[in-house]
């Protein structure tokens, strides 16, 4: 399956892109995606406690991903 990955702010700059597509085995978790992204983008400092959203909702790293999901890695927020 394919998921689309979004990067914002600090992560976007470090990844050098705001969006990418990643192939994953069916039923993969955000944690597995995170491990794959670390090897794709060595300069992207994704910690184990990074906030993750799937289709605009916060999820845990053990959620189940589905084909076509939009997964966002959320750096520490600083709005206001």
């Amino acid at each position, binding site marked *: 399956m394919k998921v689309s990955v*979004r990067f*914002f*702010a*600090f992560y*976007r*700059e470090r990844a050098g892109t705001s969006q990418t597509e990643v192939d994953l085995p069916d039923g993969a978790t955000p944690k597995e995606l995170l491990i794959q992204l670390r090897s794709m983008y060595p300069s992207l*400092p994704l910690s184990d406690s990074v906030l993750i*959203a799937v289709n*605009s*909702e*916060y999820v845990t790293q053990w959620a189940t991903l589905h084909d076509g999901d939009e997964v*966002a890695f*959320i*750096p*520490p*927020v*600083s*709005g*206001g």
Partner: protein
Amino acid sequence: MIHITTEPLNPQEVTDLVRKDSNGAVITFLGTTRDFSEGRNVLHLEYEAYQPMAENMLLQIAQEVRDQWGIEDIAIAHRVGKLEIGEISLVVAIASPHRKDAFEASQYAMDRIKTIVPIWKKEVFQGGEAWIGNHEEGSTTPAP
């Protein structure tokens, strides 16, 4: 009302959205861009949002305020893009029959905005720039 926009914010317009004859208290909070941060002279700021999710989270905060205080009259507007110093980045207007609830709900909404809403600000200062809220080493990069 929830609004994320690159246009300048008008606090009066946002406030008017929550005014009602049944409300005796109206709190309008403005977040404004500061010229000095962590010992640096800030030249301007850049705000970035994950827009659909940020709107969802603002709606969720409005719902939480409804659930906890029974307050229906809440309006939040956040500006994104490039902001000069002294501009308004955020307007939160909350109205209720009495002031105590409005003050509490306003404080609560602000705390939640700073915790769960995917919006980020970058300070551009003389000699560099930095994403705020990020204390990892190397988060400060030279300006292009």
